[in-house]
């Protein structure tokens, strides 16, 4: 009898181990990341002033947003994605020609050891409260002539007012988009372009009036430029 029970206990313990580890990582993420990143939010019911208080982007829907491998690599070696930080007005000083980003005010994201970065990325990928938005997405990643895509991105849609589509080219208040294809899930890219407010009630990105074809053209362009990145 003992012989049969003992292996059973071992199997049960082994099966519950990942859950225990995940619980540890969840607590770790709450402690290490929760100070700057929302791990749950209800921005829609909050006053607009909350937007200025954010120290980092919300992570509560990270599993609907990021590419897991990119996330793990980035946590290990973080590089700046938002040239003017999460809330640009707090990061500017007055230059002779107007507002300029003051690099001294931009906090650096701490680097995380590889094993911890992998564990955090795995945990964050389990946070998928917006599967509804992802499932509603219809974009089938395609291609577009880069020159046409760039013209659409800049001249026709004005995205370059806030975003860079190549290093140093374009506005600085939004995240750079030349690595968007590497870091974001395809469905998230298209869904967020179409309706950023559905993801974040206080998104600083305008919810435009583009139809899905126009949105998909922009998403195709981000794929084309993203695939060029090392």
């Amino acid at each position, binding site marked *: 009898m003992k012989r049969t029970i003992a292996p059973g206990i071992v199997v049960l313990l082994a099966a519950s181990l990942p859950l225990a580890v995940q619980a540890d990582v969840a607590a770790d993420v709450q402690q290490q990341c929760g100070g700057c990143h929302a791990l749950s939010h209800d921005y829609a019911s909050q006053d607009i002033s909350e937007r200025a208080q954010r120290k980092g982007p919300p992570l509560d829907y990270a599993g609907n947003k990021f590419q897991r491998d990119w996330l793990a690599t980035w946590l290990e070696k973080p590089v700046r994605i938002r040239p003017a930080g999460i809330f640009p007005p707090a990061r500017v000083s007055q230059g002779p020609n107007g*507002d300029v980003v003051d690099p001294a005010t931009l906090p650096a994201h701490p680097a995380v050891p590889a094993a911890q970065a992998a564990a955090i990325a795995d945990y964050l990928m389990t946070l998928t409260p917006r599967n509804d938005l992802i499932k509603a997405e219809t974009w089938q990643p395609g291609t577009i002539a880069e020159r046409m895509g760039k013209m659409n991105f800049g*001249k026709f849609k004005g995205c370059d007012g806030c975003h860079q589509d190549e290093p140093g080219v374009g506005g600085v208040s939004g995240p750079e988009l030349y690595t968007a294809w590497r870091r974001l899930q395809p469905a998230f890219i298209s869904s967020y372009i179409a309706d950023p407010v559905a993801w974040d009630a206080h998104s600083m990105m305008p919810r*435009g009036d583009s139809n899905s074809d126009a949105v998909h053209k922009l998403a195709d362009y981000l794929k084309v430029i993203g695939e060029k990145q090392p």
Partner: protein
Amino acid sequence: MRTLLLLPLLLLGAMAQAADHGEALYQVYCVQCHGVQGNGKGVNAAHMSVQPRDHTDTQEMSARTDEELFKVIQQGGKSINKSVLMPTWGGNLSDDDIRALVAHLRRMCCTKQ
């Protein structure tokens, strides 16, 4: 009689409250291009082919009606034959929010403090 005297004060108070809300919205949605000081020199301006409007320019701003300002915020620059770089904010902001922004613009451009 007392009510009649209080009415303008109440209206002024409500307008100031709207403008305060508009100022908070302006900080989130507008300063990136129009500048922290509203002078059209935000952090993105240097990268733009068309320079953002200077909201402190009394003469320029006085030439625009409140309805035009409301429309351009709600429906973007294209709606008044201006640049696509001015986005449509009607999907992010309620009509009341946009009216508050217009009140803030009026206070910024045309009320000397």
